[in-house]
């Protein structure tokens, strides 16, 4: 193709485009329209305001309309059409406004410069319906602010044991919040079951026209265990709000406390009450109704329903005495969700009937509090019957078993009085004088010791004085001998030898002699030296005694001799010279 041809073709295309362009501009009618996405609207609602420029182009300014608050915009759309040789174009600018007036809003006539002069839109009234947005939402939106931790509970006025769903949520209006730490509080007074949920993520939510990113960090099913008012608080958050790539700030939020009023169950409370449930059913199932002795069967007692099934305790059952019953195995199929707990709890008993017969599995007689009917419901039904045949394999006279249980203490009482007079009985007065008597008894020992010491000391002193000792010995000796002699006063044959022996012993002791030195001449010499005034009397007395011994009948009577001897001893004692 030649260059000439190419140039002519490009000119043709340019002219054609110019022609179409002129056709558009000339064929379409210029218009400017204002429309809203919804009319009437509710207070607080978000609406779209669309400015449409038909068949011309022009930049528009964001309209400021009393009663509407700009949220976002504009977003622009453009369309061209060619129909039956007529062309048309349309450019739309869409804004999102929030309705912030509770009265009707007038959308004014908006003016814009068109190709042939100013173009104006038609004014119209935007009707605002009263009570549009929930007043609570507005209040809540105001309370939440830009960042908030909120504990949301399903109910704040419940019965004891009634489940409450508590959700711990973070409300955040910014898109660039980095949650670094949050604390979910302990909740004393509740039995807690955490609802399994995926990792928390931000989900958009509009409250009173404000868009929030909401993260539910934890959901818990709470079962109140005490009555009264229980306050939930302490849900806290620490995070970092990024303002720009280089800049940011630490932010904190803390939840407002939530008070939950827990009411007691109505009185009277049945003794066999097992808890509070929305609904509850129970059934008893046995593995077989026909068994043989000493062969185990299983008995399942199941509870199905909604409520805190984990609180159901092993029912108190009166098994036949012939049954050996083992502790039950507890099987739970309980689902914890944001609707609470639901499912079943089964107590599986392994039972061995030890003897043949027809036995009834224990009846169930329980009651529970229905949250729907707000009253106690009874759960009563008869247990199934089990027929136990004789076990031929085991002789009946074989071993038999008795199930053992701990001895139950049914009550406590003080022990009985002391019936016998067993203990010592002391007079209080006697008791009062105990210290004096103690002193008296304690003094006995030292007194004995003191006496012993005194006498010992005295003996030592006496033993040191030889002469005095001899003298004393002599005196004590003669006293003893005279006493002996006196006892023989009526028997002269015994008297005189005793008297003679005593008198001689006295003198020997006085002189410190032994028996071999007992000679009359030496005695006389010694007496002349020590007691010269008594020599004659002594010699005379000793001679008379000798006479009486060997030639009785010619001497004085014994008592006279005894008196004389005593007087002589006294005189000798007085006149003795050392």
């Amino acid at each position: 193709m030649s260059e000439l041809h190419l140039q002519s073709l490009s000119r043709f295309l340019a002219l054609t485009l110019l022609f179409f362009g002129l056709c558009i501009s000339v064929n379409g009618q210029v218009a400017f329209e204002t429309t809203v996405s919804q009319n009437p609207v509710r207070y607080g609602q978000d609406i779209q305001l669309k400015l449409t420029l038909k068949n011309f182009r022009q930049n528009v300014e964001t309209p400021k309309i009393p009663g509407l608050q700009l949220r976002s915009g504009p977003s622009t759309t453009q369309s061209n059409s060619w129909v039956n040789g007529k062309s048309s174009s349309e450019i739309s600018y869409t804004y999102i406004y929030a309705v912030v007036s509770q009265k009707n809003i007038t959308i004014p006539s908006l003016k814009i410069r068109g190709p042939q002069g100013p173009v104006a839109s038609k004014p119209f009234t935007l009707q605002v319906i009263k009570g549009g947005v929930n007043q609570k939402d507005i209040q809540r939106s105001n309370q939440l602010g830009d960042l908030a931790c909120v504990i949301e509970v399903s109910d704040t006025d419940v019965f004891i044991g009634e489940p409450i769903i508590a959700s711990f949520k973070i409300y955040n209006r910014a898109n660039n919040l980095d949650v670094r730490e949050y604390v979910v509080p302990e909740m004393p007074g509740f039995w807690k079951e955490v609802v399994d949920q995926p990792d928390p993520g931000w989900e958009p939510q509009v409250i009173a026209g404000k868009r929030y990113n909401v993260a539910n960090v934890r959901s818990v099913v709470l079962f109140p265990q005490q009555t009264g008012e229980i306050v939930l608080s302490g849900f806290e958050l620490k995070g970092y709000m990024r303002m720009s790539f280089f800049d940011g700030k630490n932010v904190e939020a803390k939840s407002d406390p939530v008070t939950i009023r827990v009411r007691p169950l109505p009185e009277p409370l049945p003794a066999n009450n097992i808890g509070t449930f929305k609904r509850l059913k129970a059934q008893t199932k046995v593995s077989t109704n026909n068994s043989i002795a000493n062969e185990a069967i299983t008995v399942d007692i199941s509870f199905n329903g909604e409520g805190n099934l984990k609180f159901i305790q092993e029912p108190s059952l009166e098994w036949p005495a012939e049954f050996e019953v083992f502790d039950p195995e507890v099987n739970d199929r309980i689902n914890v969700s944001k609707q609470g707990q639901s499912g079943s709890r089964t107590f599986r008993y392994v039972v061995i009937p030890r003897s043949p017969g027809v036995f009834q599995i224990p009846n169930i007689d329980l009651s529970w509090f229905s949250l729907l009917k707000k009253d106690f419901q009874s759960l009563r039904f008869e247990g199934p019957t089990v027929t136990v045949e004789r076990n031929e394999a085991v002789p009946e006279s074989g071993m038999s078993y008795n199930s053992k249980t701990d001895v139950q203490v049914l009550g406590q009482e003080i022990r009985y009085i002391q019936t016998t007079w067993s203990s010592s009985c002391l007079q209080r007065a006697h008791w009062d004088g105990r210290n004096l008597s103690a002193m008296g008894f304690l003094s006995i020992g030292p007194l004995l010791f003191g006496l012993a010491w005194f006498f010992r000391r005295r003996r030592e002193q006496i033993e040191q004085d030889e002469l005095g000792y001899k003298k004393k010995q002599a005196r004590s000796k003669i006293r003893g001998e005279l006493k002996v002699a006196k006892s023989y006063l009526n028997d002269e044959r015994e008297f005189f030898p005793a008297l003679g022996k005593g008198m001689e012993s006295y003198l020997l002791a006085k002189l410190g002699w032994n028996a071999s030195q007992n000679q009359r001449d030496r005695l006389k010499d010694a007496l002349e030296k020590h007691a010269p005034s008594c020599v004659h009397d002594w010699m005379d007395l000793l001679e008379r005694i000798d006479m009486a011994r060997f030639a009785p009948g010619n001497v004085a009577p014994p008592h006279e001799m005894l008196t004389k001897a005593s007087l002589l001893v006294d005189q000798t004692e007085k006149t003795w010279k050392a």
Partner: protein
Amino acid sequence: MKQLIFALIFSVSFSSYWTQDLSFLRATFDSANVAYSEGRYAEAQAGYEQIVATHLHFDSEFNLGNSFFKQSKLGQSILHFERAKRLDPSNADLENNLLLANARVIDRIETLPTAGIEDLWERMLSPGRFPLWFRLMIGFWTLGFVLLAWRLWQSSVGNRRIAGTLGSSLLVIAAVFIALAYGSSKRINSSQEAIIMVDLANVLSEPSAVASTLFVLHEGTKVRILQKVDEQCEIAIANGNVGWLSTRNLEEI
């Protein structure tokens, strides 16, 4: 000789009086037991009170505690159980009854932890132990001196050594028993413990009319008396709290 005869007559007359007195007490005790077994607790109480007014008798104190317990007079019951405990600290029946009575006391007081030796010491020095310590004290003391006296009259070195060592050892042991007897004797006069006898007693910060209430005690609670000022006494409870209380609110054990 005359003196000996006089002492003999006196002791015979005294012992006959004592025997008469004892038989009367036993009769009272038996009739009170019958009243108790028939459920006439007030009558039984009167009988036992007649005995304990003039005599120290464990069985009567124990039974009196039981009689008051049956009449739901908790304070009096604990008081007499405690008095019985002073006479026989290791009686198992008493321990059980006192435990049950104390279980009914409103005040729950956490006892401060004590070393076990302190409890042992308290048991050893309880007034009920006094007769034992007294007899052992007199026995060891007198025997010790007798041995030392005997030693004086011994000429054999071996005998003197045995007598001296044994006598001195007995005196040392006797000194321990003297200390124990003295300690338990002191507790007879004043146990330094009391029981709250009124339903509710305010324990004040000081013994004056303008004092503030520190805590409140209830009937049956045992307190330790620290000091007395006029009609007020300073008390301490088992957890260590101290305050002042009117003496009208309590009775000493």
